[in-house]
């Protein structure tokens, strides 16, 4: 097992051209592994063979200029990319060593283990606050009212929304402010009890205070979840993430500990990007 791990580290070093500190990597385990992901739209590759490993109970940030394939790569991790018309994916995504792409029918089950939060808050317009959080439960066959109540309250507490909405659970989800809607969507994603949480620029549509709340929440959530966050905001990546991957033109240019990527980048392009010279 250790030999295999070490082999994979070697391979990643060559692929990402980034030396990786072996001792720290071997100490903890990977929750999600992406192998040679190639994703394209109508034959044009947006992600060109990315290999990445995501540590359990850690936050990994994906940064890079617009159009570099971060979001596309993120959407490959829970098989959302293939839902777009004309989109194709090849490669492997291993969740606890199980390949998500090995079986076509299992996409639905995999998506329950890998929750996703989108850039723009998208609560279901016809549902109440309560029903929005309960949607993933009710529509996936959970019938026990007590369990649903318990999960709804628990998830709303986890996103620090419970105190703000506990008297208005019957109100439409759309009646909340933008920041509250986004936290509602995170609660909705948590309700299906995922193990991994993908976040696609979750704070880009929010003001600084709402952003701060979401960031605090991410720090709290990482105690239990493996979180992968795409962000345009480099300060945000520094604040919330443990590891950072820098993508450029569909490639993973550099991947390592956040501190190292920002303070001591090994790649020239990474250095230019994190110093704000382009992007």
């Amino acid at each position: 097992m250790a030999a295999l791990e070490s082999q994979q580290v070697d391979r990643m070093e060559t692929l990402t051209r980034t030396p990786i500190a072996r001792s720290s990597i071997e100490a903890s385990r990977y929750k999600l592994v992406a192998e040679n992901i190639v994703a394209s739209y109508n034959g044009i590759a947006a992600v060109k063979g990315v290999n990445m490993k995501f540590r359990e109970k850690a936050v990994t940030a994906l940064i890079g200029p617009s159009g570099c394939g971060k979001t596309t790569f993120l959407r490959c991790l829970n098989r959302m990319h293939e839902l777009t018309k004309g989109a194709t994916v090849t490669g492997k995504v291993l969740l606890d060593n199980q390949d998500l792409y090995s079986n076509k029918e299992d996409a639905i089950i995999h998506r329950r283990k890998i929750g996703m939060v989108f850039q723009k808050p998208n609560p279901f317009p016809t549902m109440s606050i309560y029903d929005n959080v309960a949607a993933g439960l009710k529509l996936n066959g959970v019938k026990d009212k007590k369990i649903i109540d318990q999960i709804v309250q628990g998830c709303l507490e986890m996103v620090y929304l419970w105190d703000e909405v506990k008297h208005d659970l019957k109100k439409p989800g759309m009646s909340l402010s933008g920041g509250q809607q986004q936290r509602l969507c995170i609660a909705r994603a948590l309700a299906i009890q995922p193990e991994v949480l993908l976040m696609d620029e979750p704070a880009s549509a929010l003001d600084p205070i709402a952003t701060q709340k979401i960031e605090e929440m991410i720090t709290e959530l990482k105690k239990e979840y493996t979180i992968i966050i795409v962000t345009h905001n480099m300060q945000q990546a520094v604040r919330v993430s443990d590891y950072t991957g820098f993508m450029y033109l569909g490639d993973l240019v550099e991947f390592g500990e956040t501190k190292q990527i920002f303070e001591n980048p090994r790649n020239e392009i990474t250095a230019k990007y994190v110093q704000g010279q382009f992007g």
Partner: protein
Amino acid sequence: MITIEQRAEFRKHFRNNISRRVATDKIVKGIVFGCVLLAIIPLGSILFEIIRNGVPVLSIDFLTQPPGAVGSNQPGGIGPAIQGTLMLIGLSSLIGVPVGVLGGIFLSEYGNNKYGQTIRFFNDVLAEFPTIVIGLFAFAVIVLSLGYFSILAGMFALSIIMLPIITRTTEESLKLVPVSYREAGYALGIKRSVIIFRILLTSAKSGLITGIMLSVARIAGETAPLIFTILGNEDFFSGFDQPVDALPLRIYRLANLPYDSATAQGWGGALVLILIILSLNIGIRYLFLRKRRGGSFRITTGG
């Protein structure tokens, strides 16, 4: 680079004549307003005439009694026709609404291919079909094979008329539901069929209801296909193998009779028909859409 001189030159090319612009604006406003008036005048005058002529005839007897002997001083009422129209609307919707909505779901969710395009094309052709042809079709298929005129044949013909309208409006309103709601559903690991029925359809509800109401209004006023299918009857519904009456048919017959009292009843029938459609429309909207005042999300298509 554009120099400052060039920029000054470019600015000269814009139209600066404000008074002419204001004048154009006023003229266009006038034309638009005039067109609205032109469109409203016929509608208003029809409504006015129907109410003026129809209201005096209205009475409990008129709404509940079968027609009396022609030309006698006991004109009777249009009870069987009201009953027939309500039954026809209900029975046709029983077939037309589910099939139409499912067809719309198919076209919107699974119809992005050659097969779907073909169906969409023929569906549009069917929507523009003369309804008398559909009546003849129902006559040939149902009446001739069963051997009698009946409400079943009428229901068959009217549900065919409903189908393309409902299919099209369902498809259009489903397509208006933003992709982000679909994605949110997929991200929660919800099955596609459940996403369609529990998330997309509820989001598209108001468009769906508009489509259904449009088609109900359309079939409630159809006369031509009914001549070949339900034939008309002086009495109340007495079985699925008997001819029945309907308001448009009754209005048509009454208006053709050479008696003033019959013509007056025809106006009354027209008023009742309009009131039925109006109350159905308001009633159904109230029933299905009243909870939605909180949400800012609204989809409407068609009328």
